[in-house]
């Protein structure tokens, strides 16, 4: 994951709020409303750079949430 989590914590990701993102180091490689939307990018990355492990997560949004 390298610097991906630090980037996730420190970057302004407001435009991705509520979306799934693929982050590698200091770059958002893909985003989408559903996991399906980012699946292809993760698979491409795995083939191209097998050692690269991206952070794949959902960016929190400000809508009220109860689990």
């Amino acid at each position, binding site marked *: *994951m*390298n*610097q*991906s*989590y*630090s980037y*996730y*914590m420190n970057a302004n990701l407001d435009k991705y709020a*509520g979306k799934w993102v693929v982050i590698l180091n200091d770059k958002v490689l893909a985003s989408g409303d*559903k*996991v*399906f939307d980012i*699946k292809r990018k*993760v698979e491409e990355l795995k083939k191209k750079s097998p050692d690269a*492990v*991206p*952070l*794949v*997560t*959902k960016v*929190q*949004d*400000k*809508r009220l*949430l*109860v*689990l």
Partner: protein
Amino acid sequence: MATLKFKYRLRPEIPIMLKYMGNLWHTTALIDSGSDITYIPHDIARMMLKMPLRSQPESIDAAGGKDFRGIPQKVTMSILDDKGKEQATFKAIKVYVADRHYDNDHTVLGMDSLFKNFDVKISASHKEIELIPCSP
């Protein structure tokens, strides 16, 4: 194991890695003391962890009087630091995977995994989380 400290942004979440049959998924997971279980969205389990999801689903009560069905699975879970290094690893953790896609779904660490192994302190004013390993 030393105390693990994290900052968070909007809601308490920590970086984790889940491993299932050689498939890795690095992500963040919400911390929820109100949840008995650890929960993974269906699409993630299927597409990132390649879980077959053939086990019999169980009924799980959720907030708002709703319920859903979760498929029990065993995974290896690691808590990571901000550089992605494994700080604590737990093998054969039981998780529940949603039996279908739900919109606005989240990965949740509940009482059965995180809280069983750590005393969890959350400071909302400082947006900080401390995971203090439980004494054996």
